């Protein structure tokens, strides 16, 4: 079970709370986690990654165990803490309120 935290606008779209869980068959990578997320919540397709290129939307970042992995390869394996659900895979979004 992998935990994924979502920014508010994606929670609203998916109709979820701040954190969702997904299951991944095979290697746990950023790409496989996001694939599983989009399978469970089809309305998120195109919102985190571009529909066609699968590039990350520039106003979102991915964090794993406190480190920014947004610029790493989407096929890089994620650490055991993520695979085991001890730590969440965090999708952080830009906010502008003041």
């Amino acid at each position, binding site marked *: 079970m992998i935990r994924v935290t979502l*920014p*508010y*606008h994606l929670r*609203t*779209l998916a*109709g979820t709370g701040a954190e969702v869980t997904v299951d991944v068959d095979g290697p746990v990578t950023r790409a496989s986690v996001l694939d599983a997320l989009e399978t469970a919540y089809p*309305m998120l397709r195109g919102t985190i990654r571009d529909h066609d290129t699968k590039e990350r*939307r*520039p*106003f979102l*970042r991915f*964090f794993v165990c*406190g*480190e*920014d992995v947004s*610029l790493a390869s989407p096929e890089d394996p994620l650490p055991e803490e993520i695979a085991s659900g001890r730590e969440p895979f*965090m999708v*952080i*979004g*830009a*906010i*502008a*309120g*003041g």
Partner: protein
Amino acid sequence: MHASSAPREPPLKDRMKPAPPERELSREEVARYSRHLLLPEVGQGGQKALKAASVLIVGAGGLGSPAAMYLAAAGVGKIGIADADVVDLTNLQRQLLHATTDIGRPKTDSARDTIGGINPHVIVRPIESRLDSGNALEILSPYDVIIDGSDNFPTRYLLNDACVILGKPNIYGSVFRFEGQVSVFYPKAGGPCYRCLYPAPPPPGLVPSCAEGGVLGVLPGIIGSLQALEAIKIVIGRGDALTGKLLLFDALGTKFRELTLKKDPSCPACGDNPTIRTLIDYEDFCGVPHGTGGTGDQAEITVEELKRRLDGGEEIFLLDVREPLEYGICNIGGHLIPPGELAMRITELDPAREIVVYCKTGIRSARAIETLRQKGFQKLRNLTGGIDAWADRIDHTMARY
């Protein structure tokens, strides 16, 4: 990163030594700042550095209020405060610089009065002009530290680029609903900038503003206080600044989380080959139309025209694309479909009828119109200024939020 060991920039305190006579502390100031002077990490040197320092706070709102008040109390010598707005009743739930009697006054006026009341030694520079690419460098130049307490993406990118160009620390804070973010963007000291974190903003209307999504009043109090803390540490050259870190705060869970940020070598502002050497048009960059509540080329309708046509008995379908909580505060009888449900509930709408779409200010309705256009709807009009404009100009008894 340790603020006192910033690789490229000595602490402001060191650059300001020795203190000129006017920076010496008077007897009254020694008493006023005695709790600082008792801290070896601050002491006379730190307090004089604060007195010699200048901080510009952009936005006299939820973040700017605690930041300005704590920096004033701490003895920062000069505080600039930039805001072009006037005080509104809806501000008072969180913007502690302003009181009920200040409603209608320029925010910079009430900010000046409040800061002066806290500490008459502080020189306050109210800046009522709206910051733009034509004046930002000139306005920022005289200040040592910039605090970003703005409430919109164009100003955040403007401040970032201006700070990178001028080599100044940009103390970033932002809030939304129950969540806050804080960082120090200071490429001159080796850290990343705002564009390293978010190279581009979300499309207009995708991420609601506090005016649309709400914000717990105490939250900007916490985040703005953290911004003041970072400013003080940078000025006195002590402690660990949040350079290269993003601090997240979850008010509902009362949880802080610190994330590590990386400098992006390809960043157009502070990367290895920067391409942003002058300020650009930030409203264009963020896709925000100049001076309207809509998004450009859509057919708009004013509240006056809508009222006239409704009074004339015309069959216009009103589509309200706000959230149910907002609808409960005030409405004009539109059919409510929240933006997140629009794609799923599109069958509730008749493409043959003229539909006037509205939200609070006209941004979300503009996005809804884009969605409907893609589904083949053509007879669509965006209510300029949204239900806010209706309350302003048509129905003065309507509840505001």
